């Protein structure tokens, strides 16, 4: 089965062609990151304006690179949410028009399901598994007892981990996006500041606002006293605390559910410290983190998730399918 995937939930315009939920025939990603860097973060209206300039040309490149035509496509899988609504609507309406014109069934796919299924590219899921979803908008633990079955065990009570990275990068003047910048800097030095212990309500919940505020207050105090800030030592201290929180909660979830596999999904899965800590701590179960190229938003993961969604429930959506800025994974 050949699936055309479409992703436009944030600041990447992406179209892919994948086969049988595994083989990537093409995955074209047009990133707007340089456009948004001038603003210090993604500006929704700017993102939507970029998407509409690129949508059809990205479709064309994806078909050309896969060496197929519209006739070869069995299913169109488009991100329906969550994400920036204006951006989602460009991808959804473009995908609907393409599906209609070429008489292909279309399905809307949850963006986080896409991130989870990025793990299917180079690995093979074994159930039950625990998925740690970490990005600028999400920090959650999901139990999967089978393909396309998602049970949320816990989530962040406040900030997402990626959001905390971005905000701390901003106060340390490391630029946007903040995650890779902190990760790089943290690897140059051992922690030189103490970080607070993180407390949460539920066993599988997360919290990043306390850690974030602590770092921001620390920086402001040092600035006020005109004392030097050891940026590398601070980045390292923050990163170790942030990642330890993820690892501790994930270990408990894997243990309690007797999971056979632990996978990481979302943009923060590209974090090198997180990747090495997963390798170090989860020696007792099979693990997977997506290949670097598929950690950030891309349409290949949407096509693969779409394949499994359609295998489980082979019902296409109508032409009334719409975007949703907030959407539960079910």
């Amino acid at each position: 089965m050949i699936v055309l995937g479409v992703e436009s939930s944030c600041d990447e315009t992406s179209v892919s062609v994948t086969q049988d939920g595994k083989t990537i025939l093409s995955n074209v990603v047009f990133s707007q990151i340089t456009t948004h860097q001038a603003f210090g973060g993604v500006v929704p209206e700017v993102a939507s304006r970029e998407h509409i300039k690129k949508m059809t040309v990205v479709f064309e490149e994806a078909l050309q690179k896969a060496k197929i035509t519209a006739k070869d496509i069995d299913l169109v899988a488009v991100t329906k949410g969550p994400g920036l609504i204006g951006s989602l609507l460009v991808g959804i309406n473009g995908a609907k028009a393409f599906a209609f014109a070429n008489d292909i069934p279309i399905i809307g796919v949850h963006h986080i399901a896409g991130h989870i299924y990025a793990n299917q590219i180079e690995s093979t899921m074994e159930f039950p598994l625990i998925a740690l979803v970490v990005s600028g908008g999400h920090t959650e633990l999901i139990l999967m007892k089978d393909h396309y079955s998602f049970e949320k065990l816990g989530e962040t009570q406040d900030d997402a981990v990626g959001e905390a990275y971005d905000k701390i990068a901003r106060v340390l003047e490391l630029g946007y996006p903040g995650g890779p910048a902190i990760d790089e800097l943290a690897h140059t030095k051992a922690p030189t500041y103490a970080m607070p212990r993180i407390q949460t309500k539920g066993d599988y919940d997360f919290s990043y606002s306390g850690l974030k505020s602590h770092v921001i207050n620390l920086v402001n105090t040092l600035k006020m006293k005109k004392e030097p800030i050891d940026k590398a030592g601070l980045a390292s201290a923050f990163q170790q605390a942030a990642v330890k929180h993820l690892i501790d909660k994930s270990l408990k979830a894997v243990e309690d559910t007797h999971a056979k596999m632990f996978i990481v999904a979302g943009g923060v899965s590209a974090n090198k410290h997180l990747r090495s800590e997963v390798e170090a701590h989860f020696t007792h179960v099979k693990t997977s983190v997506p290949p670097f190229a598929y950690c950030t938003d891309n349409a290949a993961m949407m096509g693969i998730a779409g394949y499994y969604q359609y295998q489980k429930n082979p019902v296409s959506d109508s032409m009334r399918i719409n975007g949703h800025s907030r959407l539960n994974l079910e």
Partner: protein
Amino acid sequence: MSQSLKHLVLDSATDYLYIGIFEEDKPLREYYELGHNDHSVKLMDELTKLFDALNMKVTDLASIIVGNGPGSYTGVRIGVVVAKMLAWTKDVPLYTVSSLALMASGHTGKVLAWIDARRNHAFLGLFEVSETSMKALDKEQYTHLDTYKDTVAFDKETTSGKPNIKKLFNSNLLTHATHIHAVAPVYLRQTEAERNLNDK
């Protein structure tokens, strides 16, 4: 095979959603309804219904004409991405037309068509519209509405109107898109973030 003379016209830049299918300049089917922030739900759904009712395919079209703004930023993008996609994937010639011209075409006389842009400002256009044709009298702009009204003469003002496609076919207001990929809405305004950046 006889040469197709059918045309699809779309506009989703205002509160009203318009879809029309024409044989030369005669309407075969039209949809014109006040939306409720649901153009994204309705456009492809209603378009599919019109094509089904006429037993037509996208490949039966001689051209696609899309209102490319100004208007609601999100709204205009829905129509433009659909028109671009249909035109590109089935190799149908694509034309753009001002959404204000589409609105004005439903009226006659010197027509001031405007779309509210808040803070007493509007996206507006001034047109001379006859029973059979129309032309633009001024460049479309984002400006203070009352100030503009004081400086120009017009017979009527309007914020909506069912398009009269025949008048547009007889005008010079349709622009052929030689590069479909490059077609983008006319916003007439930078985003707030860009304006703030430029002000720095």
